[in-house]
């Protein structure tokens, strides 16, 4: 038997539904673990969303509130440093800032299915190099 208490799905022994390895990955197994009251332990936190109130995911041109971006609506990303350069690519791979030049490598869009920001140049996504183990983009 399970109860929905706050943001936790809790059983009789006070244990809660959790995501294996605390990882936000497709096909992760769901486990039962002691409750972690650290508010940042999102792997144990759930929203109950009734199907008749589920709005579905935003479609093309609609605003994704959680990510703060319109779906598949092209944009530039402009630095607020004094020269207001745009995010661009060199070697069609590495992120840099460059003066506005009208190329597709300066045009980006939010891709709803992957929840990533992609370039119009070749539809690849923002990525922290080495699977996030570096600072480079």
């Amino acid at each position, binding site marked *: 038997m399970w109860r929905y208490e706050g943001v936790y799905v809790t059983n009789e022994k006070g244990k809660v539904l959790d995501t294996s390895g605390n990882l936000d990955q497709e096909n992760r197994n769901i486990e039962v673990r002691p409750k972690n009251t650290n508010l940042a332990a999102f792997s144990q936190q759930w929203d109950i*969303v009734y199907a008749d109130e589920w709005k579905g995911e935003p479609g093309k041109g609609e605003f994704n509130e959680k990510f703060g971006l319109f779906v598949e609506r092209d944009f530039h990303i402009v630095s607020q440093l004094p020269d207001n350069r745009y995010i661009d690519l060199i070697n069609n791979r590495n992120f840099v800032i460059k003066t506005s030049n009208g190329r597709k490598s300066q045009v980006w869009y939010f891709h709803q299915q992957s929840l990533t920001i992609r370039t119009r140049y070749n539809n690849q996504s923002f990525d922290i190099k080495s699977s996030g183990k570096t600072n480079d983009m």
Partner: protein
Amino acid sequence: MPSGRYVDLINNRNMVVKTQNGRRTQVWYFHQQSKTIRTRYNNQSWDIKSAGRTRDMQIWSTNSGWFQVFKYQGEQFINPTNNKVLEVRDNKHEEGQALVIGNTKSKPDANQRWKIIYVDKAEKVRTKGFNKEFGFHINRPFYIRSRMPMQRVLECHGANNVWLKRWRKNVRAQLWYFDEVSKTLKNNNWKSHSVDI
């Protein structure tokens, strides 16, 4: 006891207290011929294990031994031979806690007191509305959505596993509902299964 759990069976043998679940293992009747209390599950009788040499309660084939005979008096089930009463073991207010027999007290604790609800007078099980105790709406399908950034939802995979998956339109295995009868969470695609450890 405070939660008002029902006398039930686990392993179809041992007597315990559990939340009301609508199963026949929670339905009992008095059998005049044998003078025993029987379950509607398989018509076996209340029985003190090992022919009365232990405290533990179970159901067993009817034989009307002294260890199978109980009367209901003053909110207690009393064995007339040893004058002991049915009680929740260790006075513990927990799901699945075992039932035993214990000594009679002048002022019985809640773990020795019982109320009989005749099925023909019992309230009907609700089929909709909010169950405040469990925090779910009854029979109203919902998604269980992670608060992690990707906001994936729980999906029942192959009836036995629960995985975190991206939401997909019209996938019944991603929809869950609260069943008021069993007080469990069920999957919309595998309705005979409940969320289980």
